[in-house]
């Protein structure tokens, strides 16, 4: 239960970090360490070079600009949890973070670390999928942006090349009429969800759903945005009948089984949590209207 030997690097800038990443064989980037450190302790991960990003201060920031929220990859989950800027521009992110690990892990854990670890049940991964976040990637060769949908390529696998790192992400949060909810089921508070569902609704003047986004995670290798369900919600009143129809469709999504949870149970949770997320989002819209 001790990490295998490695050479430690602690770059002070992104330029220095990507240079190391390009030059060193079998190198891993260390963000908050809340996933990589256990993997190294178990020796699931045995990098020859560990590039610690904790001194790269330019990777840690939260900015609201032009109807979008840009967050540096090394921004700690704790800082997002308590940020006024996030509370105003993307409260859903804080609702999701309430389910992420524990105080001690959020104190160290980072946004980018969670997204690059890409656990399919991770709450932050779910939110990135819901917004189809723009992932800003850098390497010594230059910079590129890709939508989250192209970033998650497989089970715990991202589209990052060996010499690339995630520098920041952008969430489009401009629509002020949005209402949201995050619902999940986990066996213990702080555990990765078995299934989670996040919802973002925009209501029109008639009180109908104008736009709907849903992200379901935990069903398969990456979160799913069920386009057909989102489409079908448009133009409907946010009532139990509408939610029930959407939830029934969510149960038909593909789900995997593992040693602990059957596919049927995951599908059941998809139905229940889709209903709950929509119900909570609609209730929040009503609440906000009365404020």
């Amino acid at each position, binding site marked *: 239960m001790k990490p295998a030997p490695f050479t430690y690097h602690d770059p002070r800038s992104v330029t220095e970090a990507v240079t190391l990443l390009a030059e060193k064989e079998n190198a891993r980037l260390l963000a908050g360490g809340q996933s990589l450190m256990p993997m190294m302790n178990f020796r699931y991960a045995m990098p020859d070079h560990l590039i610690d990003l904790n001194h790269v201060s330019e990777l840690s920031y939260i900015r609201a600009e032009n109807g979008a929220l840009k967050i540096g990859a090394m921004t700690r989950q*704790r800082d997002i949890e308590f940020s006024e800027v996030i509370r105003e521009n993307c409260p859903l992110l804080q609702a999701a973070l309430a389910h992420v690990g524990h*105080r001690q892990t959020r104190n160290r854990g980072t946004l980018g670390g969670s997204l690059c670890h890409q656990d399919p049940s991770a709450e932050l991964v779910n939110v990135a999928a819901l917004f189809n976040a723009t992932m800003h990637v850098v390497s010594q060769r230059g910079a590129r942006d890709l939508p989250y949908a192209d970033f998650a390529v497989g089970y715990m696998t991202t589209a990052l090349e060996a010499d690339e790192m995630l520098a920041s992400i952008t969430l489009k949060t401009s629509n002020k009429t949005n209402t949201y909810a995050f619902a999940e089921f986990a066996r213990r508070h*702080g555990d990765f969800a078995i299934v989670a569902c996040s919802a973002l609704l925009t209501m029109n003047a008639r009180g109908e759903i104008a736009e709907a986004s849903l992200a379901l995670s935990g069903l398969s290798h990456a979160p799913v945005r069920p386009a057909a369900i989102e489409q079908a919600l448009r133009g409907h009143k946010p009532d139990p009948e509408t939610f029930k129809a959407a939830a029934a469709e969510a149960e038909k999504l593909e789900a995997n089984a593992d040693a602990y949870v059957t596919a049927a149970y995951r599908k059941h949770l998809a139905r229940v949590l889709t209903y709950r997320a929509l119900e909570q989002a609609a209730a929040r819209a009503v609440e906000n209207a009365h404020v």
Partner: protein
Amino acid sequence: MSDTRKLSITVNGTTHNATVETRMTLVDFLRHELLLTGTHVGCEHGVCGACTVLVKGVSVRACLMLAVQCHGATVHTVESLAQGEPQGKLNVLQQAFQDHHGLQCGFCTPGMLMTLTEFLRDHPDPSEAEVREALSGNLCRCTGYQGIVDAALAAARKMREEVDESK
């Protein structure tokens, strides 16, 4: 050849200079190099919370940090809580644990105490539910948590009284 670094670290008010293997975790450094064995090692993968210490005032899992990452940092362990020499007088939180049967075997206690030290500093008047959530990252297999929650609430009350008295 093992990779080593020079490390300067202030633990419980004392600055230590050492050369450490870069792969050494903070908890192993505290226990094996500084012989501060109050911090316990449980699961070594960030689940049990027994190794919780404060780094720059915030609670972290000492098994998920490398000692080398604490270069220049201030660290507080459970040994910092009792006041005075030689054995020290239990502080309000520790005394509350004793009074409310907040421990049996005591293995998880150092982590519980450090988590609560940060939590009660930031939330001097917590509800029972808030205490339970704050403790969700610390596992105890003896007490069933009731005594620990009682101790945390009693300590919070006592600390608030002390603040009022000093006014």
